[in-house]
């Protein structure tokens, strides 16, 4: 099986750990990943103003690339890219007037009407591989690890593009349980990490991120799994500062869910690029013998 893939800017550099582990895992599961050619930034956030169409052009242009290259599905991984692409796609499918305006503006491109389906990596895993088959492929189960499924905002909201209904965490839970981990529910799985507000404030002021970590720690979670580089930045990379300022009680290492997937599939730890995570993340995995296969 071959899939068309949209990585997104951050996954090429600072979130290489999200991207490389994901691709290696799919390859281990027999799926060939083909990155679409000539993609641009999706815009990261979907424009919410009724009269603003120019910010739809970025995501739609990527969908046009996928269509041009013969893809009927476009798999993506970063939560923000997923949300922006999926919402723009929905607009192009449902709003004929805006679709027409956007197509006419993009007179250098072929017309687009939502022919491509935007699929998140987790949905793809469930639909095309399935948790049973994934379980069979696991070589190094994460038996000892208590994980929290941190969805954040953009995987579930708004409802019409959410990968599953608000308040339900079945996809990541299903995957992590197939990998042998223990999934611990917690009340902040869909609470925002503070997102782009990191630009406006000092990171240590990010009370939203501190709340997520404190709630997770309080629930007995040892590791947070996420799908979003901005969540990982606010929760993971900023954790040391939050700790130093006593905004959080205890650290909770964060991972991309694809890193845990790759480890459990027995892939080399190199594909997970743990050097891009906080040092504590690697320590925890070592202490839990999760790096045994590598």
């Amino acid at each position, binding site marked *: 099986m071959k899939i068309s893939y949209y990585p997104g800017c951050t996954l090429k*550099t600072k979130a290489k750990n999200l991207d490389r582990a994901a691709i290696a895992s799919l390859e281990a599961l027999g799926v060939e990943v083909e990155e679409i050619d000539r993609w641009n930034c999706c815009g990261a956030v979907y424009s*919410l*103003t*009724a009269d603003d169409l120019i910010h739809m052009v970025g995501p739609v242009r990527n969908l046009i690339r996928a269509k041009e290259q013969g893809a009927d599905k476009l798999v993506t991984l970063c939560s923000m890219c997923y949300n922006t692409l999926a919402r723009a796609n929905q607009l192009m499918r449902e709003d004929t007037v805006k679709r027409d305006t956007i197509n006419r503006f993009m007179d250098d491109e072929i017309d687009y009407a939502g022919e491509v389906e935007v699929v998140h990596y987790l949905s793809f895993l469930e639909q095309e591989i399935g948790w049973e088959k994934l379980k069979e492929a696991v070589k190094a189960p994460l038996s000892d690890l208590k994980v929290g499924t941190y969805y954040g*905002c953009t995987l579930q*909201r708004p409802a019409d593009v959410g990968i599953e209904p608000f308040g339900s965490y079945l996809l990541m839970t299903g995957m992590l349980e197939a990998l042998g981990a223990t999934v611990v529910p917690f009340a902040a799985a869909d609470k925002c990490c503070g997102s782009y507000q990191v*630009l406006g404030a000092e990171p240590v002021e990010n009370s939203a991120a501190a*709340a997520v970590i404190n709630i997770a720690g309080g629930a007995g979670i040892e590791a947070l799994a996420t799908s979003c580089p901005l969540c990982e*930045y606010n929760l993971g990379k900023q954790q040391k500062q939050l700790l130093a300022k006593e905004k959080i009680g205890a650290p909770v290492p964060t991972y991309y869910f694809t890193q845990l997937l790759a480890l459990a599939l027995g892939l080399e730890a190199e594909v997970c690029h743990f050097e891009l995570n906080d040092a504590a993340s690697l320590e925890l995995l070592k202490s839990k013998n999760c790096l045994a296969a590598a």
Partner: protein
Amino acid sequence: MTLKMNAGTQSLESIQKLNELSGENVKLCMQCATCSGMCPMTAEMDYGPRRVMHMAQFGLKKQLAEINTYWKCASCHACTVKCPRGIDIAKVMEALRQQSLRTGQNKVEPSQMSAETIADLPQIAMVAGFRKLTS
């Protein structure tokens, strides 16, 4: 802040403008405050989203221009998905931001960010932040 509602403070036009920009109807709000309960950013806001909806309903243009609520909003849509009146409150916040940004004023200045901060931030933080906080 005491909300003074009279012909001098209220702008009916601003209500209509906000509704047009957001595509929502702020008058539908019944002030239940579910939004404020769901909002992860209230600790940083001077007024919670419920009170902003209240100001919006009465067209209190001046107050709306002074508060920081929509500048602290992270567009996480927690309010939107739980609003019992079906208002996309995130869109109302975006409309309030845009009303200000469209006058050409930035809330963050890209050229004044330090090189260290920029090098540290993931690209999506910059893209999203500039979309929401620069004109």
